[in-house]
C-alpha cells in the first residue's frame, strides 16, 4: 500500500490472504471462495466508506466477518456454537477411550467460531490486536480473552490433554 492509492490494485493484492483466511475459517474451498467473493463485491459497493487513513486489510476482514456472521445466523444449528460458554465437545466423553488427538485442521473446526476467528487473525494473518478488534467489532480485551481461551482449547484438542469435562449449561 503505497502513497498513490489505487484501491483496485490494493484490494486485488489482498485477495490471496483473504482466501487463506477464509479457507482456514471455513475449511471447504468452494465455500471459502464464495465468502471471498461476497466480501469483494461488498467492498466494492462500500469503497466510498473506506478512508485513506484506514488500513485496507482490517477493513476487508471486517467486511468478511460481517458476511460470515450474517450467514451463520441463517443456519440454526450453527448458532449454538456462537455461544462462548457452550464449550462442550460434540463427542461424548468415553471412559476407557484415550483422549483424542486431533490434527490442526480438525481441531480448528471444533473451536467456537469466535475463537477460531481471533486465533486465525492473530496467528495466521498476524494482525495487531487492535486491528483484530476493529475487524471483529469487539473490544481489545475481548480479543485477548478469546485468544487465551481459544489457544488453550486448541492445545487440549491437539495434544490430547485431559479433557476438561464440559461446562455444559443445563437449564
Amino acid at each position, binding site marked *: 500500500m503505497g502513497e498513490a492509492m489505487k484501491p483496485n490494485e490494493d484490494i486485488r493484492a489482498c485477495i490471496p490472504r483473504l482466501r487463506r483466511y477464509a479457507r482456514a475459517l471455513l475449511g471447504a474451498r468452494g465455500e471459502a*471462495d464464495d465468502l*471471498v*467473493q461476497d466480501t469483494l463485491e461488498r467492498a466494492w459497493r462500500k469503497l466510498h466508506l473506506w478512508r485513506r487513513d484506514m488500513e485496507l486489510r482490517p477493513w476487508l476482514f471486517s467486511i468478511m466477518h460481517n458476511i460470515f456472521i450474517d450467514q451463520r445466523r441463517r443456519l440454526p444449528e450453527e448458532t449454538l456454537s456462537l455461544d462462548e460458554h457452550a464449550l462442550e465437545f460434540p463427542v461424548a466423553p468415553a471412559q476407557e477411550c484415550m483422549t483424542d488427538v486431533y490434527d*490442526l*485442521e480438525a481441531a480448528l473446526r471444533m473451536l467456537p467460531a469466535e475463537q477460531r476467528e481471533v486465533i486465525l487473525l492473530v*496467528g495466521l494473518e*498476524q494482525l*495487531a490486536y487492535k486491528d483484530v478488534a476493529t475487524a471483529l467489532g469487539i473490544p481489545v480485551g475481548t480479543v485477548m480473552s478469546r485468544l*487465551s481461551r481459544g489457544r488453550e482449547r486448541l*492445545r487440549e484438542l491437539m495434544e490430547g490433554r485431559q479433557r476438561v469435562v464440559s461446562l455444559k449449561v443445563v437449564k
Partner: protein
Amino acid sequence: MKGLPIREDDLQAYVDDRLAPGRRAEVDNWLAGHPLEAARLRSYRRQNEALQALFAPVLDEPLPESLKAVVRPAQAGGRIQLFRAAAMLAAVGMGSVLGWTLRGEMQLVQTARTEAVVPALPPALEMTPVAISDTGLARRAAVAHAVYSPDVRRPVEISADQEDQLVSWLSKRLGSNLKPPKLGSLGYELIGGRLLPGDKGPVAQFMYHDASGKRLTLYVSRETGDDKETAFQFAEIGPIGVFFWIDHGVGYAISAGADKAELTQVALVVHEQLHLP
C-alpha cells in the same frame, strides 16, 4: 515476582512477539520460574507456526476466474453488472414478444450479400435467408447468454483449468465428442462451460472472455434430424448478436454483445476447428 504482575494478556502477547523489549525480559524472567507456563506458551507458538505452514499453500494457488472477475476494472461494481443483466434479459424478453407477434421476421437482421461480410466463405456456408423455425436456436442461445454471461460468481460450472474434465463431462452428457474451440487468435480465452436443459436434451454452453472482460458464449445443442444442415445465419436479439448454424443435426450458436463482423470471424474459427479431424 517483582515489578508489575505478569498477566495473561502479557503471556499471549509474548507468544505473538508483541511485547516491548523491557516487558518481554520481565516475562522471560518470570517464565524461568514457571516451567508449566513456559511449556504452555511454547505450545501456542507451535500453533502459530503450524497454522502458517498449513495454510501457506493457499497463497500460491491461482485465483479462480470468479474472483479475478470481481476486481477486473471493466467490471467493477455489482450494481452495474446486475443492471446490465436485467437490461439484457428485458431486451431478450421483448425480442421474444416481437418474435411471436411478427413471426420472427422483424428481429432478424439478415445479411443480404454474403460477400460483403465474409469474402472467403466457402460456397456451402453462404448465408441464406433464415427459416423461421431456426430462430429458436438463436433465441435459446441468446437467453442462455443473457442469463449466464453477466454472472460474476458462477459464469460456468466447470472452469477452463479443468478442461479435460469439462470435455469428458460435456461429451458424455451430450453423447458426442465435444471440445471447446480455441479462440485465442481472436483474443478470447475460455472461462469454462456448463450444461443447460434444452428442448431436445442437454445443451452445452462454453464461455469465453476477452481482455476487456467482454464475454462470448458458444451454445451447442442437438437439433432434430441427424442430417440437418443450415447456412450461417445472424440474428440480433436485443443487445445480443447471435451467429448460428446447424451442422449434421447439431446446432451451434455464438452469442456476444458484438457486431456481425466480429461474430463472423469467431464463427469461422469455430467452424474450422469443429471440422478438424
